[in-house]
């Protein structure tokens, strides 16, 4: 009876110890291994704005279309800019003639004897000649600007990418500088993993990373490219008179804040589609220092 009772204690104690070890392992695995469910696919989004104002006369792309660098996106009414160019061309021709006339005049007077033209007259002719030359250069610059404006009526894609949220139609008025559509750079996809601040010691730049999308397709691989060096301090706003306004309520239970960690994706599998803004799980494979 006594041996049996000792056995009963021993069995229970052994399984209790094992359970404690297992629970500790589970806790550490969840709390200290560097992974997060809070990852986002990101890409560079380029806001395309017209460089000159005018009525949109044609839209060459459809929504979500793949465009290549230099492809035409939309065009703005050319007539006004063509007219400006013609006007400056005419001014240039006029200025050219003026410049030729003044310079010949000056050359002729420079060659004449001082008994025929006064030196004042000669100097005036030389000055008028250089003024005409300078005016010619100014008009030349204006002509080039007009030509540039005419070229900029054709809005072209600055990168290879996908047209997104196309909200520009024929007949719209495009103001210079206000974005009309967005192009997602197709070569710029990366992942932001939002890691809890408690997990930062367990990851480092260049650690290999696995990225699992929610769509259940094959896992992507990548490397940590960089770790953000700052997030907003939510408790310290600037109050009146530029003084710090520190939030006096402090929670007993509080959550670890999250720090963005930028992940560079390795080569994507052929035909794999990524959508900027979608969620993914980021798992750092080689912890840079052991957790626990």
């Amino acid at each position, binding site marked *: 009876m006594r041996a*049996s*009772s000792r*056995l*009963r*204690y021993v*069995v*229970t104690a052994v*399984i*209790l110890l*094992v*359970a404690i070890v*297992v*629970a500790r*392992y*589970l806790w550490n*695995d*969840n709390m200290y291994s560097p*992974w997060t*469910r809070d990852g986002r696919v990101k890409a560079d989004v380029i806001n395309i704005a017209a460089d000159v104002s005018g009525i949109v006369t044609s839209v060459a792309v459809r929504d979500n279309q793949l465009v290549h660098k230099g492809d035409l996106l939309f065009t703005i009414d050319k007539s006004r800019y063509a007219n400006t160019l013609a006007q400056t061309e005419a001014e240039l021709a006029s200025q050219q003639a003026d410049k030729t006339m003044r310079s010949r005049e000056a050359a002729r007077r420079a060659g004449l004897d001082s008994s025929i033209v006064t030196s004042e007259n000669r100097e005036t002719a030389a000055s008028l000649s250089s003024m005409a030359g300078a005016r010619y250069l100014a008009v030349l610059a204006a002509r080039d600007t007009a030509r540039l404006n005419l070229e900029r009526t054709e809005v072209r894609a600055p990168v290879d990418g996908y047209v997104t949220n196309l909200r520009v139609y024929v007949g719209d008025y495009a103001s210079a500088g206000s974005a009309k559509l967005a192009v997602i750079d197709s070569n710029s996809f990366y992942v932001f993993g939002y890691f809890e601040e408690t997990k930062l010691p367990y990851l480092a730049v260049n650690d290999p990373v696995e990225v*699992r999308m*929610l769509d*259940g397709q094959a896992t992507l691989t990548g490397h940590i490219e960089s770790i953000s060096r700052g997030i907003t301090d939510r408790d310290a706003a600037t109050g009146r008179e530029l003084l710090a306004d520190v939030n006096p309520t402090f929670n007993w239970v509080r959550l670890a804040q999250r720090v963005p960690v930028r992940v560079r994706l390795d080569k994507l599998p052929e035909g794999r589609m990524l959508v900027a803004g979608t*969620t993914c*799980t980021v*798992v750092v494979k080689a912890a840079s220092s052991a957790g626990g």
Partner: protein
Amino acid sequence: MPREFDFLGALVPGLLPVFLLSAVVHIGLDWACGHYGVYRYVWHRSLFRICMLICVFGLLNALLIK
């Protein structure tokens, strides 16, 4: 096993199905221990059972998620 999965549109941590599975396994083990008299060699039956559940959960977690 993914770290999280899509359950009718809700995203659930991968640990949840593992826990449910370990609960099922635990019910089986509990029945077996009762049937084959393992509990006669146990001092505190409830403590033994919760420890067993934790062990099963940890084992399944190590096997399925790692």
